[in-house]
């Protein structure tokens, strides 16, 4: 059995309300919540980045179940905001946990780099190359001030340790779908990403999520009713509900893992963190479908079953994600600019 | 060991010397001391220069050689070296000069102290001064020097209940005395209210609890006590020169409310001079931050632990009090060109003991004590001077 051995999530304490962002740009304060389904989003503190978030998420995972560094065979860190353009985040993670013999690499695939990391580790465990591997999705994504992404781009991350012993959630199957669809991108050297506006919807998000979800269920011989929970990539609060409805899932199946309304889009962290919210409450036998989406564009889909092992697993050793969401310090747009280093530095 | 005496003393005004360089300052003070000693530069057999960080402040190391060169004695080929012990560099240079005379190796030495600090912007000065703490495990993590002093103050206030108002008495007294010193950086009085309402530097320390960034230099000429009267009618004996150190970082210490290096340097100095705290007629206490002066006064035996503020409140630290405190204005008002400070304190005591201190003269002063510290009271150096 190959699956999740432990997991941990981290979102920064600071939040900004979308109404506050709207106030600055002269938009009707209620519109972001109505239109995007986002009330607030996380803001990384001045000294937080994708690497620090990754470490905090991983430490939460290790608090729940400690896997010694020497037993970790692989580390993949998925992010579109790695602190360095050249210099891996994965090597920092290896140093922090003392996993000096691990295969370590960074991944980037817009918002699906986190699930790409999970697939890579899953494959190495399944192939018998390693006993345990770390997969992390983490981001401190940035939207250009005043752009639509200013309302959603946020920060957070989740770490999974995947292995074959004491698995709390078995990964039954995983598949991917990819096409060359540039709905969102950032050229080398550009500070903020660009996007195709409404083009990010139908030909990008919906086409890829639906194709991957359908094929996964086809290959597993399942339908929406076979799943207790569904997690879809959540660039805003609306898309995952809409794609779920089209696929035949109910709001109830999606709600537990739908975090974007409160924390915004954590990009590479989004689907992994939504899944962690489900694992925070899941019971043995619960079945979960999780489908990510990364612009550019592709989706990874997972079929997961929670095992009896979760009863013995110390979930309370680290803060659950909905509890982290409740702990929040709201800041105004000026503090947001300070934290996000958007105040022009003269030196 | 020979007894050591000061036969000449001189200093520049402390403050912002926009038109003077490091070498201008040190040469000015050195020549004043030489002139005061009734010798010529040619008589000097060795130079000890106290300086914390010319290498960082003005990019100039090898300060000893620079001093000798621009004092005009390069051709004499005498030894000249820089002595560094952070803000106690001046007193450390004096300690070295003292040893040089006491040992009999040299008969006349010039001890100088100098710092040129205002050539850089404030944030860079703050960073350089922070080098007196543990760069890797205090400063790197965001602790500035005022921040470290503030943590001493916070803990002290927590343990003894001293108030910010009580702490503010110390800069108020320093300024009252500084107002009488024409060479002081600040020559104006301030109020407790002004201290409390000044911009916060590191809570609970406002900018008025902190000494300023000053340029300046001070120098003394030393010889043996038995030779001193050949040069002057009013030599001043250095009856103690004591130096002690402790852990460089605050977090490694047993306590933040006392300085074991000051206690030890004081103990050694009193023993060496055969004096007790009650024999001291005036003190120059290191008040880079109010809290350091407060702990210094207590650790040198002038007040019970936690009660130095009472001396201030009762007026005992005034010029006519039982313990005239920082008649020069101290580091707070006279200024704190770090490498010069320890020598400058001694220059002040020499003036006082010679009855040459003008409006700030302490009546009948015969014994004075100078307390100079480096870092967060990491290095403490105590000199006791007396008329002979």
């Amino acid at each position: 059995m190959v699956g999740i051995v432990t997991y941990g999530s981290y979102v920064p304490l600071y939040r900004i309300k979308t109404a506050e962002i709207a106030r600055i740009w002269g938009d009707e304060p209620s519109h972001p919540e109505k239109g995007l389904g986002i009330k607030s989003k996380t803001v990384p503190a001045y000294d937080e980045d994708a690497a620090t978030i990754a470490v905090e998420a991983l430490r939460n995972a290790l608090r729940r179940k400690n896997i010694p560094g020497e037993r970790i065979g692989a580390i993949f860190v998925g992010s579109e905001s790695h602190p360095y353009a050249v210099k891996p985040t994965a090597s920092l993670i290896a140093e922090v946990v003392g996993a000096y013999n691990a295969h370590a690499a960074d991944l980037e695939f817009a918002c699906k780099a986190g699930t790409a990391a999970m697939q890579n580790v899953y494959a190495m465990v399944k192939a018998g190359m390693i006993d345990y591997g770390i997969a992390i999705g983490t981001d401190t994504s940035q939207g250009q001030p005043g752009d639509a992404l200013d309302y959603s781009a946020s920060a957070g991350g989740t770490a999974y340790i995947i292995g074959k012993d004491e698995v709390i959630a078995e990964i039954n199957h995983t598949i991917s779908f990819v096409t060359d669809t540039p709905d969102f991108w950032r050229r080398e050297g550009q500070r903020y990403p660009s996007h195709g506006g409404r083009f990010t919807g139908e030909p990008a998000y919906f086409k890829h999520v639906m194709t991957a979800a359908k094929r996964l269920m086809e290959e597993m011989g399942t339908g929406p009713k076979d799943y207790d929970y569904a997690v879809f990539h959540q660039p805003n609060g609306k898309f995952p509900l809409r794609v779920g409805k089209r696929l035949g899932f109910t709001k109830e199946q999606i709600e537990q893992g739908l975090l974007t309304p409160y924390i915004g889009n954590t990009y590479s962290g989004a689907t992994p963190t939504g899944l962690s919210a489900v694992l925070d409450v899941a019971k043995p036998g619960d079945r979960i479908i999780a489908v990510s989406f990364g612009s550019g564009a592709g989706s990874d889909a997972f079929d997961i079953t929670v095992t009896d092992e979760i009863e013995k697993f110390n979930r309370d050793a680290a803060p659950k994600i909905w509890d982290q969401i409740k702990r929040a310090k709201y800041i105004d747009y000026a503090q947001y600019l300070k934290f996000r280093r958007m105040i022009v530095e003269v030196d | 060991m020979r007894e050591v005496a000061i036969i000449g003393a001189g200093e520049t005004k402390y403050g912002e010397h926009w038109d003077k360089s490091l070498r201008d300052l040190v040469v000015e003070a050195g020549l004043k001391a030489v002139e005061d000693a009734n010798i010529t530069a040619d008589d000097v057999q060795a130079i000890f220069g106290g300086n914390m960080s010319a290498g960082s402040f003005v990019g100039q190391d090898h300060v000893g050689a620079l001093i000798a060169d621009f004092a005009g004695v390069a051709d004499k080929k005498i030894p000249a070296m820089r002595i560094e012990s952070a803000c106690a560099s001046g007193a450390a240079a004096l300690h070295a000069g003292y040893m040089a005379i006491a040992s009999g190796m040299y008969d006349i030495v010039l001890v100088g102290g100098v710092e040129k600090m205002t050539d850089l912007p404030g944030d860079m000065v703050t960073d350089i001064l922070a080098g007196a703490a543990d760069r890797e495990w205090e400063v790197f993590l965001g602790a500035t020097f005022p921040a470290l002093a503030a943590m001493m103050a916070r803990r002290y206030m927590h343990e003894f209940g001293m108030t910010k108002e009580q702490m503010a008495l110390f800069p108020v007294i320093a300024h009252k005395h500084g107002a009488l010193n024409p060479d002081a950086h600040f020559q104006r009085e301030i109020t407790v209210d002004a201290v409390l309402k000044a911009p916060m530097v590191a809570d609970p320390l406002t900018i008025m609890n902190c000494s300023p960034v000053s340029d300046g230099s001070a120098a003394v000429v030393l010889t043996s006590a038995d030779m001193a009267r050949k040069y002057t009618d009013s030599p001043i004996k250095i009856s103690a020169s004591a130096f002690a150190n402790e852990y460089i970082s605050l977090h490694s210490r047993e306590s933040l409310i006392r300085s074991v290096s000051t206690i030890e340097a004081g103990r050694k100095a009193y023993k060496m001079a055969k004096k007790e705290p009650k024999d001291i007629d005036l003190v120059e206490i290191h008040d880079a931050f109010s809290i350091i002066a407060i702990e210094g006064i207590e650790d040198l035996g002038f007040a019970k632990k936690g009660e130095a503020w009472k001396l201030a409140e009762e007026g005992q630290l005034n010029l006519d009090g039982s313990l005239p405190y920082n008649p020069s204005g101290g580091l707070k008002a006279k200024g704190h060109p770090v490498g010069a400070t320890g020598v400058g304190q001694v220059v002040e005591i020499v003036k006082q003991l010679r009855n040459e201190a003008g409006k700030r003269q302490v009546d009948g002063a015969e014994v004075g004590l100078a307390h100079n510290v480096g870092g967060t009271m990491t290095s403490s150096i105590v000199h006791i001077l007396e008329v002979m």
Partner: protein
Amino acid sequence: MVVPRFWRERRYRYSLIGTRCPVCGTVYFPPRNVCPKCGRESVGKMEEFQLSGKGEVYSYTVVHQNVLGYKYQKPYVMAIVQTPEGPRITGQIVDIDPEEVHIGMPVRAVFRRIAEDGKAGIIQYGYKFVKDE
């Protein structure tokens, strides 16, 4: 660009690893090669020791100065933290309103950016503290 000076300390800074004197049992942070209590006895014998990251505020201050590298973080809270293992540690307290901090407040270590060598240089990571709730 300063690289090795911080690189050689990375394990201590990332994971709060100090040293313990096997002679007297005293734990030190930052690491020491010589135990001040045991002197020569301890040379070559000091062992690495993992701190828990827990502690309480022993003293603190709120820094309002313009500090090189910390300019955009002011005002920030600096503290000396008393650990249950023995050593005190200097570090920032983050994610807190300065008014909330008090002596005795329980804290735990978190992983944060500490400093950056300009915009092009190395980012140095290490420990800071947050209120332990």
